[in-house]
């Protein structure tokens, strides 16, 4: 592979936005027939790099090289033309058009009289799917496709345009295990067909699984490019963070107290059935399972977002009426939801107002809200959670994912809950912040908080939980104590291979 130059390369690229130096002297080489990983924390410059490759940004200094020759992309169109395609985390397809129409949007094969030739369209699409080794119906509308399938459609679109470089920007963040496996198969197929691939993921095990070499960025600076073979996850983290992470899962030993949350025979027809468990003070209980097993739905029902058909939820001695987040909150429940952007935060609202939103009553002095209390409380939490921000009056939308999650946590912890339900605590968060969140959860449990943690991240489940509950197809299939929880036992229960007695 080394006789010919790399298909696409960056050489000593610098890019600044105002005073922010997003990229400094960064080089990268993407070779045909190789999957290259790009590693770095949030804010390390990964997105800027991707956008430079994709022609969205032009470097202030340095060069973009295509087949060894310097090129200038004047826009995403130029890059596409040169065979560079980017697959984003959440593709945007036209929902009402068919899969085939989406792929050939704007370049539909024509029959005589200029009409779209549906037969050719379908055949071409089918051919693409064969090449990728996936089974998708070209005729079905894009609406209702899973994110994984949408990505496949995007990849097919890229291939149909003869893309030689495929950049995948955190494609796996919202995928389940099987979907990730299929995506990887497709990626390997393309690699074997001579494409150059750039893969970005926060999940280190995926990088090790899929890629041959890795380039690491930190704070906009190029750190290293090396073969993954012979590297350990700790090495990689160390390069990304620039220091040793104390321990990835700083689990504190805690004294476990009385039952705080008691869920009995909770049932929502067609969604989950007969779910019973308890969470005690000081305990972190993980709720594991595959995506779609009904975990988030149970959390929503407990917190009163959705109604349930049968069963009870008790917090301390209070039995919740159900269907009201307000009463759940006053009983001491808090829910950090899965979808930060829609459910966790008011994105255009300021940091302080987002934090204050859960305790509007206690911010009052007389009938009106005290700006001082509001700001002081937000500032306290910002310091306590090491929030990185410019002003408390800034919209939370400008924060990075990890810092947004901290705002959500601040918003809920300031209600002084006795039970914290946290749904995917570290999804889409960089390694450093991830470990901060873990430490915080551990600390909170140490102070007597009962934590129910839903997570699809197995190492997180195993590292954090005192007990692991596993759901499969709407039912609790296992309760595994910490010392018996392994990837094998949890996955077996999650896929329905064992059926232990649920507590």
């Amino acid at each position, binding site marked *: 592979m080394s006789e010919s130059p790399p298909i696409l390369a960056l050489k000593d690229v610098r890019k600044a936005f105002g005073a922010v130096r997003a990229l400094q002297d960064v080089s990268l080489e993407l070779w045909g027939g190789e999957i290259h990983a790009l590693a770095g924390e949030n804010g390390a410059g990964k997105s800027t790099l991707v956008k430079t490759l994709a022609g969205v940004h032009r470097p202030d200094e340095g060069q973009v090289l295509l087949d060894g020759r310097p090129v200038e992309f004047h826009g995403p169109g130029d890059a596409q033309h040169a065979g560079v395609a980017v697959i984003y985390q959440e593709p945007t397809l036209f929902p009402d058009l068919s899969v085939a129409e989406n792929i050939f949007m704007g370049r539909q094969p024509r029959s005589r009289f200029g009409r779209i030739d549906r037969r050719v369209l379908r055949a071409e699409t089918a051919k693409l799917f064969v090449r990728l080794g996936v089974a998708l119906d070209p005729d079905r509308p894009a609406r209702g496709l899973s994110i994984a399938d949408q990505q496949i459609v995007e990849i097919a679109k890229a291939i149909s345009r003869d893309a030689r470089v495929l950049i995948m920007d955190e494609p796996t963040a919202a995928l389940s295990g099987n979907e990730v496996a299929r995506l990887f198969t497709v990626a390997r197929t393309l690699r074997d067909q001579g494409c150059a691939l750039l893969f970005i993921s926060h999940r280190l095990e995926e990088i090790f699984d899929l890629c041959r070499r890795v380039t690491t960025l930190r704070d906009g600076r190029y750190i290293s490019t090396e073969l993954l073979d012979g590297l350990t996850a700790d090495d990689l983290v160390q390069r990304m963070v620039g220091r040793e992470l104390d321990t990835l899962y700083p689990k504190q030993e805690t004294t476990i107290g009385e039952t705080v949350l008691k869920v009995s025979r909770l049932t929502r027809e067609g969604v989950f059935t007969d779910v019973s468990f308890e969470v005690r003070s000081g305990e972190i209980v993980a709720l594991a399972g595959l995506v779609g097993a009904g975990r988030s739905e149970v959390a929503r029902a407990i917190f009163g977002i959705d109604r349930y058909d049968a069963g009870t939820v008790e917090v301390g001695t209070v039995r919740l009426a159900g269907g009201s987040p307000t009463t759940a909150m006053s009983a001491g429940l808090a829910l950090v939801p899965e979808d930060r952007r829609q459910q966790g935060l008011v994105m255009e609202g300021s940091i302080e107002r987002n934090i204050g939103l859960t305790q509007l009553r206690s911010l009052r002095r007389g009938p009106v809200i005290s700006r001082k209390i509001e700001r002081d409380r937000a500032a306290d939490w910002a310091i306590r959670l090491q929030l*990185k921000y410019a002003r408390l009056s800034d919209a939370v939308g400008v924060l990075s994912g990890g810092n947004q999650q901290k705002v959500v946590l601040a918003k809920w912890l300031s209600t002084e809950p006795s039970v914290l339900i946290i749904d995917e605590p570290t999804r889409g968060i960089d390694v450093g912040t991830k470990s901060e969140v873990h430490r915080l959860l551990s600390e909170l449990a140490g102070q007597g908080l009962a934590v129910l943690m839903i997570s699809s991240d197995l190492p997180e489940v195993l590292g954090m939980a005192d007990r692991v509950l596993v759901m499969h197809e709407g039912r609790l299939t296992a309760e595994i104590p910490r010392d018996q929880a392994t990837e094998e036992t949890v996955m077996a229960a999650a896929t329905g291979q064992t059926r232990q007695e649920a507590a």
Partner: protein
Amino acid sequence: MAPEAPAKVPAVRPRVEGPGPLHRFVRWDVIVTALLIVVFLGGAFGTSDFATSDNLSFALDDLSEIALIALPMTLLVVAAEVDLSVASVLGLCSALFGALWDAGWAIEMIVPFLLVVGVVAGLINGLLVTRLGLPSLAVTIGTMTLYRGLAYVVLGTKAVAEFPQNYADLATKTVPGTPIPYPFALFILLAVVTAIVLHATGLGRALFAIGAQEEAAFFAGIRVKRIKLLLFVVSGIVAAFAGAVYTLRYGSARADNGLGLELAVIASVLLGGVDFDGGKGTLGGVVAGVLLIGLLRNLLMLRDVATEIQSIVTGLLLIVSVLTPRIAALVRQTRRHHRGTTPAASS
């Protein structure tokens, strides 16, 4: 964790583009206030009868209903809802006013009764929106027609006049020693209350959150449905009260009173800088918007401009007020795009 994370130095990322002092002055409500002053001065120098105490009192009195109804409308639009039935509630209450007066009721009985009618009208709107989850735009277009129809059922096409002078005075006379008519004085009082509610209470915070991201507000324990229902009821009450004011002010109860008034109300709210998509706006801006609409109407009237032209002007203002912030946002976005993305997006 993160020993290097500078917790005490929060300004980790210098902002590429912050709301500098200049940005703060080009806020929409400030622009509208400036425009208001320009129109006022233009009117004062260009039209001889404009800047007289009598005319201004008349202009304010003429604005009473629009101004009053604009207050709850602001709360609704901030919460990303709208009530198009307000003018019909006003008409229905005006018709009821006439019919009940004809039937020998005392004004002291009629007004409380109208307020109850306002509550019921608001409850119907609110329940349809919150219980059935229908969009308020559609619901209140429906009830707009329904309530207006009921007004005709109550009073037909006849007009009832000759109400007691002391009540007519309340609707038209000015507060002694000021050029401010009583209804407008009430508006000022209620505007202060509304401003406090919107900008300084938990309810106000909740309204902005609902308008910007309803799901997140619900997840934060805010009783979204209850609050929306309350807003529609308040809107109904104020519209009903405005019906009484209107009737007494013109001394005439008719089923078609206040026809089309909802558009002037919404125009002044949007002109005041409240985002029709919810989540943004200030009450100060709305007061400026209301006054601007009022002054323009008055000026056009003084210059004998035909009512058709007046409605064209209202329509244009409505479009301009919706369009301008969007264009401004678009310009800002493209400019940002040229400079690169916002700092946080460059991860």
